[in-house]
């Protein structure tokens, strides 16, 4: 990413130009996408929908007659109920630490299965910030970076997904993933994500997820194809699902911690 922003900078200083264009794309046959999750102490939710044409602004077609169930490594299981528009929800089983979950989705006699584990939850120990001089500084306004301190479990192959929200917006501004490999043997870990910066007026909310290796891989791949800024030369692809071959989406089991910060006047 660092490299890409550099090439953009050079492009930028030589009057590069970005514009939204019309382009003809093929419409692929609709394909099922599974967006499933179970969170610590919460019940499972699964969203089933089909792909639409790329520029479509309409709601996708939803899968409303699937059989969706979740089971854990202790042999408990539950069938999720369809609540409308392809959203299936559980009501009994809640996410527990250390438990591995398997999601099963059956559509037209075809069954897709995938599993994920809730690892030791992380905690945001502190959330600070520092002034950021910028990659060349785009404007007059001062920018800031976060300094994040998380609790780590050095005995576990754990991973983190951090979502950054600006000013109570519903969707995160961006996210980043971190691997335990960078922080071996440490009880607490500290890092400063360079990809996310904010200004004085912003209220920043951080959600730190504790995730397993599969989820880390999936979000790493997802990040590459939804954030193509400046790159674009590497070959795009569909992130690899844990629900089987020839299917889109992912099922993850996770926990999270959340904290908010704002710049204090000096």
């Amino acid at each position, binding site marked *: 990413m*660092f490299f890409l922003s550099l090439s953009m900078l050079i492009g930028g200083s030589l009057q590069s130009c970005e514009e939204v264009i019309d382009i003809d794309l093929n419409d692929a046959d609709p394909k099922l996408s599974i967006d499933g999750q179970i969170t610590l102490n919460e019940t499972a939710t699964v969203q089933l929908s089909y792909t639409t044409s790329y520029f479509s602004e309409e709601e996708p077609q939803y899968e409303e007659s699937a059989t969706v169930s979740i089971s854990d490594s202790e042999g408990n299981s539950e069938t999720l109920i369809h609540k409308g528009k392809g959203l299936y929800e559980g009501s009994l089983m809640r996410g527990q630490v250390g438990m591995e979950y398997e999601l099963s989705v059956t559509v037209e006699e075809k069954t897709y299965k995938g599993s994920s584990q809730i690892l030791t939850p992380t905690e945001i120990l502190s959330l600070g910030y520092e002034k950021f001089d910028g990659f060349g500084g785009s404007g007059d306004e001062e920018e800031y970076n976060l300094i994040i301190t998380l609790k780590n479990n050095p005995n576990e192959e754990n991973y983190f997904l951090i979502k950054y929200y600006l000013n109570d917006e519903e969707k995160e501004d961006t996210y980043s993933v971190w691997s335990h490999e960078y922080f071996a043997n440490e009880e607490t870990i500290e890092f400063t994500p360079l990809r996310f910066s904010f200004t004085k007026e912003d209220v920043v909310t951080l959600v730190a997820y504790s995730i397993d290796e599969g989820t880390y891989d999936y979000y790493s791949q997802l990040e590459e194809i939804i954030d193509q800024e400046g790159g674009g030369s590497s*070959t795009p692809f569909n992130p690899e699902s844990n629900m089987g071959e020839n299917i889109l989406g992912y099922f993850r089991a996770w926990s999270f911690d959340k904290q908010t910060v704002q710049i204090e006047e000096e």
Partner: protein
Amino acid sequence: MDFKRQIWAVLALFFLITLTAIAQEKYTISGEVIDAETGEALIGVTIYTADKTVGTMTNTYGFYSLTIPKGQQTIFYSFVGYKTQQRQINLTANQSIKIQLQTNQTALNEVVVSAEKKDKNIAATQMTGEKLDMKTIDKLPVLFGERDVLKTIQLLPGISTVSEGGNGFSVRGGSIDQNLILLDEAPVYSASHLMGFFSVFNADAIKGMTVYKSGIPANYGGRAASVLDITMRDGNMKKFQGAGGIGLLASRLTLEGPIIQDKMSFIVSGRRSYADLMAKGANQIDGDTQMYFYDLNAKLNWKINDNNRLFLSGYFGKDDFGFDDLGMDWGNTTATLRWNHLFSSQLFSNTTALYSEYDYGFNFGDNGSMSSGIKDISLKQDFSWYASPKNTLKFGLNATYHTFYPGEFLFEDNSISDIKVAEKQALESSIYISNEQKLGTQLTLDYGLRASMFNQFGAGNNTSYDNDNNIVEKEYFEKGEVMQSYYGFEPRIGLNYRMNSKSSLKASYNRMVQYLHLMSNSTSGQPTDTWMPSTFNIEPTTVNQYSVGFFRNFMDNTFEFSAETYYKTMNNISDYKDGTQVMLNEDIESYVLQGEGRSYGMELYLKKKYGAFTGWISYTLSNTDNKIEGINNGDWYDSSYDKTHDVSIVTSYQFTDRVSVSANWIFYTGNAVTFPSGKYEFDGNQVPYYTERNGYRMPDYHRLDLNVHLEGKNKGRFRSSWDFSLYNLYNQMNAYTINFRENENNPNVTEAVKLSLFGIVPSVTWNFKF
């Protein structure tokens, strides 16, 4: 067994040749041809007898050897841009003749002024070894005020630009890592500065270059698609002189001269860009930002005596980018030591020791640093044996020890474990022999054989992987133990049939084996790409190419025309599994998919070489596709290097002695790319859905550039000139990338965004010479 048999068959052929050359009493004339003014050795000077039945050319070191019947002989020495010289000799013994050629501009009343041998392209055996001298390059429009040899060759048929501003180029459907780029025989692993906007070759220090895209001679090897052989200038043997230029983005200075008159000379050429200073001035970037490159070429040239000559040359270049304590740099270092020795007037020897290194590094300030690179140490011995007027043999051997540093990430914080991808070592060795044989007056054959061997050495692991990139087994090898070996048998054949004085037919076949692979996530090439050896998991790439061409000159050789077709099959070309992370990936080998490729095409080329109006039109029609298990269901798909149409029109008009205007227009079909054919929602994101690789096309690319060259008035020995250029004159917003993303204000709306790098870019350069 089959391999051995083939070798013996070829050797037997060579014996036959040498036996046929006896009979008449003959003597050899030999020596060097140099520029009368500078003492610089001239490459590719044609030397022939009055009846034009016997001829030769000077080699890379300006040396020639010609064996002809005894008695009265008239010998002609001719070279583009120089006056042809004629020597009358009475040949009674072997004779050494040193020739000094005068350039056309400085008319002196010497020997003879006759027309040069303009039909060289018809007579030369070389299928497609296109020679470009700096005079041609000087006349072309410049990009950002810098002449650029790599940009120039991309205007030739069969050689195409991969991406705007990039220096990576593709030759006849080959990938960018399949081009062997040599600077004074040292391989240059990354030929670009400033994200590819400049090449590393400083035009002031370059004598000339030759590009081979087919019929590649047996003395070259190691890359599958092409050879770009660039020669640095030797330095003026007669007098001290300097040249330079001051441009908007970069400035340069070259100094050269004799250390011992006519015996020893030097040349030093430096260049530095100041894009960062300019951008700071325009408030485009922050005060702490660095963004520059520099390079230095240096060469020492010592004629010890008529039979011995030493050259020491080097290149050092670096790009540096930084913001505060974050930074990135990359660069090449090459060094070449050569010894030319004449064993006899017919046996020329060149011994080379060379060193080449490429590395890049990131600096993450307090966090740590990262680096990666490749290092070569190489020994080479080449012989040219001018056996008889009809046979010129070349043979030699070469051994290169490669060390690969795929990458390491060192953290400042000692509690964090460093990431190190294991270093790899390999020895690449080869022997070759070739013969240029004249059969009668019309037919010339150039055939040869190169046998190559590649050994990867320990310490290291041969790792087996399953389909999900998990390690199945690791076999450890001690330091120095052979981990993997590969062999290559590379026949090369070229044929030139001279139909008459105006036309010739050329045909060639070559097989090339490539043992090195560039791991890259992009098609255009980036400084962060990493070189890898062939290993237990990655096999060498082999290419077979067949090529046929027709060459014809019109209107007293004023126009040259050629039409060539080629067909190429490629084995073990590489692509990656979906979503492969190339950088710092210890298991990168498991993500490489290998398969086959094919490319075929037709190239048309019309060139006007003489007169006030000069230039060329080049057109290439081609198709390149790949078939790799694991991609697009194992079906054939368009290669990223597939360009259906590729057109270059290059023109230059000399209005007066002091004013010339040049323009070029470029058009090519957009690259094959992967675009989405749908989308879906995941965790609040609109995710593009892809159905096939390279199923779409970028928009076609076209551009017009203009350059006005003004020569200043001569004041004594000081000369100056101005170049005013406009890049992309009609401000065509060509697509550099097309990205698919959510609309910033409304995440439910998805859009395609085109990024263009350059609109119209003006530049001014002031050049001087003294």
